[in-house]
C-alpha cells in the first residue's frame, strides 16, 4: 500500500483507487462526442479562436524564438522520447504560422509564402498540445527569451476545442461536466452519500451546506468516486483545527475540465457556483482540494477579479502550511525520510512552495529536497489531463523515470505529493516499475499524524510541535 490508512477497510487503498480509475478512463473513450461540423468550419473556428486569444504578450513570445534549442532538453517529454517533435519550440510552430498569416506585421508576405492551415495540421497539433505538454513551464526557466510556451500551448488547446479536436477522454469529461455538471458522476448525491459513509463508518462529521461558515472546503471527483480517504483526511484535519467550516453541495468540485480541455467558457461556468456559494455563506477562506489544476482554475483564474471577492482562495497545501506555521496543527513526529514533489500547477505555475515544506517541518520530518526542486522541478509527466490519455501512456511512463531517478537520488523512502493527478501518475509509475517508495498525499499524511484531542469550534489555537 502506498499510504497509511488509519481507518483500514472502510475505503480502498490508493492503489485500488488507481486501478478503479484506469478502468473508468477506458470507458471514457467510447463516450467521447463525435465531430459535427465540416472540416472548413472546424479550421476556421480554430483560427478565429487563436486570433481572439492573441494579445501583445502572445505575439511577442511567438516573435521571440531564435531556435537556440535550450528548451528542448528542459522538457521531460523530449527527455523521455528523444524525438525532436516534442521540443517545446515546435509546440508553437503552427500557432506562429497562424499568427504570421493572420495578424502579424508582415501578414501579406506570410500569406504568400506559407501554406494555408488544414484540418490535418490541427489533427497533428493534438498530440503536441495535449499528449506531450503538461503546461508545466520548465522550458520557460531556461529560455533565454523567457518565452512562456505553456500559455501558448493553452491557447492552442482552446483552438482545438473550437475545432472539435479534444482527445477522447478529455472530450468525454468536458461533455459530462458541461451537460451534467459532474465529473465521473460525482454529483451532489454522491457527495452526501460519501459524507454519510464517513460519518457512519469512521465517526467523523462533515458539515455540509451550513448557511454560514468561515471556511469553505472543496472536494474533488477523485475523493468522491474513489479515494474516500482524501475527504476523510480533510474532515479530520478541519475538525482538529476547530474552524467553522463547511462543504457546499452546490459548489464542491475542484476539477475543471474547462481548463484542462481548453474550453474557456466551461472554465468560467464551473467557477461561478463555487464563488456564489462562498459569497452566500460569507466564507473568508476557500480551501481548494489537492487537485493541482484547480489552483490555477480558481486562485489564478485570469477571468475572475479576485481582488473584489470577500474571501481568499488557498490550495490545501497552502492552508495546511499556514496552519502549521501558526502552530495550529498539533502533529506527532513522523518516521522515515521524506522528499516532496512540487506539482507544476501549484509550484512553478502557482507559487505555493514554502507551505507544504512547513507542514513537513512541523512533523519533524527528515526532509530532503529533490535534486531539481521548486521552480526547477520536473513534471511527473501526468499533469494537465495527460494522466487520462491512453494514447500518452508511453510519454507518461518514460518521462516518469526522470522523477523516479530523482526520488531515488534523495534516498527518501516516501515522496509526498499534494495533487491527485500527480499522485495517480506516481501510483501508476510505482506499480509499473515495482518501485519500493511510498507515495503519500500531504493532507492524508497530516490527518494520520494529528494529536487528536477533540477540538471544539472556537478553541484557542494551540502551539504546534515544532512550527
Amino acid at each position, binding site marked *: 500500500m502506498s499510504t497509511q490508512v488509519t481507518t483500514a477497510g472502510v475505503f480502498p487503498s490508493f492503489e485500488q483507487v488507481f486501478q478503479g480509475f484506469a478502468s473508468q478512463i477506458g470507458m471514457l473513450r467510447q463516450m467521447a462526442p463525435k465531430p459535427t461540423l465540416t472540416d472548413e468550419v472546424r479550421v476556421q473556428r480554430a483560427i478565429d479562436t487563436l486570433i481572439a486569444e492573441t494579445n501583445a504578450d502572445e*505575439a*511577442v513570445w511567438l516573435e521571440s524564438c531564435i*531556435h537556440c534549442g535550450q528548451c528542448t532538453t528542459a522538457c521531460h517529454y523530449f527527455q523521455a522520447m528523444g524525438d525532436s517533435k516534442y521540443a517545446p519550440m*515546435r509546440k508553437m510552430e503552427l500557432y506562429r504560422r497562424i499568427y504570421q498569416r493572420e495578424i502579424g*506585421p508582415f501578414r501579406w508576405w506570410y500569406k504568400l509564402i506559407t501554406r494555408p492551415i488544414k484540418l490535418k495540421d490541427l489533427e497533428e497539433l493534438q498530440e503536441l498540445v495535449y499528449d506531450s505538454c503538461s503546461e508545466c513551464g520548465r522550458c520557460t*526557466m531556461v529560455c533565454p527569451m523567457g518565452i512562456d510556451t505553456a500559455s501558448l500551448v493553452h491557447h492552442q488547446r482552446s483552438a482545438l476545442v473550437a475545432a472539435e479536436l479534444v482527445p477522447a477522454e478529455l472530450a468525454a469529461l468536458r461533455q459530462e461536466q458541461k451537460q451534467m455538471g459532474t465529473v465521473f458522476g460525482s454529483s451532489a448525491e454522491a457527495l452526501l452519500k460519501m459524507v454519510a459513509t464517513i460519518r457512519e463508518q469512521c465517526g467523523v462529521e462533515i458539515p455540509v451546506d451550513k448557511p454560514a461558515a468561515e471556511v469553505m472546503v472543496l472536494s474533488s471527483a477523485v475523493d468522491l468516486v474513489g479515494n474516500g480517504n482524501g475527504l476523510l483526511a480533510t474532515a479530520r484535519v478541519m475538525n482538529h483545527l476547530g474552524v467553522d467550516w463547511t462543504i457546499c453541495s452546490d459548489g464542491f468540485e475542484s476539477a475543471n475540465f474547462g481548463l484542462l480541455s481548453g474550453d474557456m467558457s466551461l472554465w468560467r461556468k464551473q467557477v461561478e457556483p463555487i464563488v456564489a456559494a462562498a459569497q452566500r455563506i460569507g466564507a473568508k477562506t476557500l480551501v481548494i482540494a489537492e487537485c493541482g489544476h484547480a489552483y490555477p482554475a480558481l486562485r489564478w*483564474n485570469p477571468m475572475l477579479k479576485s481582488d473584489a471577492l470577500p474571501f481568499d482562495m488557498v490550495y490545501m497545501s497552502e492552508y495546511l502550511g499556514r496552519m502549521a506555521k501558526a502552530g495550529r496543527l498539533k502533529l506527532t513526529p513522523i518516521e522515515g525520510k521524506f522528499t516532496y514533489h512540487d506539482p507544476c500547477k501549484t509550484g512553478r505555475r502557482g507559487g505555493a512552495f514554502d507551505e507544504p515544506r512547513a507542514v513537513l517541518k512541523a512533523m519533524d520530518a527528515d526532509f530532503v529536497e529533490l535534486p531539481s526542486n521548486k521552480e526547477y522541478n520536473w513534471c511527473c509527466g501526468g499533469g494537465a489531463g495527460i494522466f487520462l490519455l491512453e494514447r500518452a501512456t508511453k510519454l507518461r511512463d518514460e518521462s516518469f523515470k526522470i522523477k523516479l531517478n530523482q526520488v531515488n537520488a534523495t534516498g527518501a523512502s516516501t515522496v509526498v505529493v499534494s495533487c491527485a493527478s500527480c499522485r495517480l501518475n506516481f501510483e501508476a509509475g510505482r506499480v509499473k516499475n515495482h518501485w519500493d517508495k511510498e507515495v503519500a498525499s500531504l493532507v492524508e499524511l497530516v490527518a494520520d499524524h494529528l494529536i487528536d484531542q477533540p477540538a471544539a469550534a472556537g478553541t484557542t489555537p494551540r502551539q504546534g510541535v515544532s512550527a
Partner: protein
Amino acid sequence: MSLLEFARGPAIHWSLVILVAGIIWRLLGVLVLTRGADLSRPRDAFGNFKGYRTVFSRAWPNGEFTTATRYQTIMAYLFHFATLIVVVGITPHIEFIESLTGASWPALPNALGVAIGTIALISLIALIGRRISKPEIYCSNLGDYITWVLIAAPLLTGLMTFAHIGPRYETMLAIHILSVAVLFVWFPFSKLMHAFWFVFSRAQSGLAYAHKGVRI
C-alpha cells in the same frame, strides 16, 4: 558608378532605410496589439514589479541547466561581444559612422581588431557546428541557416578586406559593404529581431510569474 561607389552609396543607404523602417514596422505591428488582463489578485501587492528583474537575470542560465547550456552560452557571449566590439571599435567602421552621424571615438589597434573579429567568426562557426551536429535539439529551419550565412558573411569579408586577402582591395571592400547591406535588409524580417524582443519577452514572463509569487 563603380561597385565600391554603389556599395558605399545607394546600397548601404537604402539598406539602412529598410533596416530602420522594417524594425519600426515590426515592433509597432506587435506592440500596438492589446494587452490581455490577468484579473486575479497578485500574491503580493507590489510583487509583480519584481518580475522586471527577469530582463536582467535571464542573461545567464540558472545552475540547474549548466550542463546543457554551458557551451552555447559561452560561445554566444563571445560572438555577441566580439561582434559588437568590432562593429564599433575599428577605424573604418568609426569613419563610416562618423560620415553618417558626425560622432566619432578612438579606435582599437588594428591587430586587436583582427583578433577580436577572428574570435567572433570562430565562435559563430562553433555555434553552427553544434546546431548541425545536434539536429534533434535545434529543430533548425531555413531561416536559421540564412541568418547564420548573412551574419558570417560580413565577418569573413571584413577580415579578408582588412588582411588584403582575395580580390583587389576595392572589390573586397565593396563585397564587404554589400554583405552588410544584405544583412541590414534581412534583419527586420528575421530572428535577428530578438535584439529587441528579448526585453519584452523576458519582462512579460517575469511579470506573469511574479504575479503568482514565482521568481523565474
